[in-house]
């Protein structure tokens, strides 16, 4: 049963640590999600499936690249294979960024209009 009401709204919220501003310290730059920002985030099943698919693709493409480059490291095929690895790694990183830092589920709008589809069921961890 789908419920689209539990998703957080799109508006980017200011970091909770900095309202109101004071001489508090800045967080270390890093890729970890900030504390307290992502805790209530629920994501759609379709998005979770996509994440898993990308993870599998990374593994698969890295294996493929190693195999192709094993034969000839300077060939075009080798370059293309690693380029694909880069593309898929970046796609996965972007999806992670969207979900965890920005709380923008890519399926948000689609699911608001089609809450009954299988992809739009809320993924329960």
């Amino acid at each position: 049963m789908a419920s689209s009401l539990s998703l957080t709204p799109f508006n980017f919220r200011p970091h909770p640590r900095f309202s109101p501003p004071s001489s508090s310290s800045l967080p270390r730059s890093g890729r970890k999600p900030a504390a307290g920002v992502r805790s209530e985030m629920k994501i759609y099943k379709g998005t979770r499936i996509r994440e898993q698919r990308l993870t599998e693709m990374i593994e698969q493409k890295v294996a493929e690249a190693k195999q192709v480059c094993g034969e000839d490291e300077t060939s075009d095929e080798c370059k293309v294979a690693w380029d694909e690895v880069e593309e898929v790694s970046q796609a996965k990183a972007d999806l992670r960024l969207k979900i965890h830092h920005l709380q923008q589920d890519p399926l948000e709008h689609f699911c608001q209009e089609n809450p009954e589809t299988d992809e739009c069921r809320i993924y329960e961890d």
Partner: protein
Amino acid sequence: MAASSLSTQTHFNPTPPKTHLGLFNQNQVVLYGKTTTTTCRRRFISCSAEDKTVVIGLAADSGCGKSTFMRRLTSVFGGAAEPPKGGNPDSNTLISEMTTVICLDDYHSLDRTGRKEKGVTALDPRANDFDLMYHQVKAIKEGIPVDKPIYNHVSGLLDPPELIKPPKILVIEGLHPMYDARVRELLDFSIYLDISNEVKFAWKIQRDMAERGHSLESIKASIDARKSDFDAYIDPQKQYADAVIQVLPTQLIPDDNEGNVLRVRLIMKEGVKYFDPVYLFDEGSTISWIPCGRKLTCSYPGIKFTYCPDTYYGHEVSVLEMDGQFDRLDELIYVESHLSNISTKFYGEVTQQMLKHADFPGSNNGTGLFQTIIGLKIRDLYEQITRTKTAAPLEATKA
């Protein structure tokens, strides 16, 4: 800015079906342009400001439209940038009130399978349709909506096009914004994000090490394999950029290879229209500044600024450099108060913008600082351009 009642947003829809992805006849563009100017002369409100979109180019290897630079840039103008509502969930486009960010990967002429067959990487110009890129960017610049293709990074396929309405500011982000000379001519301002190899390696490790498929070797192999194409096709665009943000390992910590502390250089071309380079204390002189001391206490490794004139690929430039990290809010404000020509509208605006995205990478070092400052410079550039456009028709009506 006066919202003109003679809206220029008529969708240009040639009679053949949309399979040609938004291409149109050159004649009809000219005609459209003429109509606008004539109508404007008869009216006393300046409406041509609405027609022309300001176009910014950003060359970056870090994916499209989702990078922190883009988010900082769009947030300077207010509002969060979001993917187009109701469209393809894998769209790379970001839209906010004032800006639209287009990913140049959408102009791939070959999808993933096609590139594999031909043996070309995405970095290769042969994988991109520069004609389409040029025509569409030109159309948007002139106020004509286009049907832009979508390159789906998950499936590796080219998806059906999405409609892009001309925004006030169009940002084209990707690997080749300055590669094609015609597209270069359309850009009102261009930026190149130049990440050194060591930093790139460190960032990719942070990005990919958590992935099951990756190891240190695979990450290194991926960077090395792409390097030759990158150096041949992407890197030369540096010389055309109005601003280059160069990210290097720090010089403050010997043998630091974690890439946590960074040395960031903002290389700004002199003589660019509507763009006055940022400077420290005295324009055109050479300054070395360590803000930490009696008035400001910094923790290790501290902060060091340098400013000097230089030449870069044969052009006169000014270089502002920051090495180190901000640890506290008051350090950021202190630094901001000593920089000049940062085009802020109020004291502390840079700091405020940095805090808005405090959990993004680079928020405590030169990358976040210079990206934010460039965002403010672009806002200033935009306001100058629109002011000039409103002035011109008013002059014409007075005559």
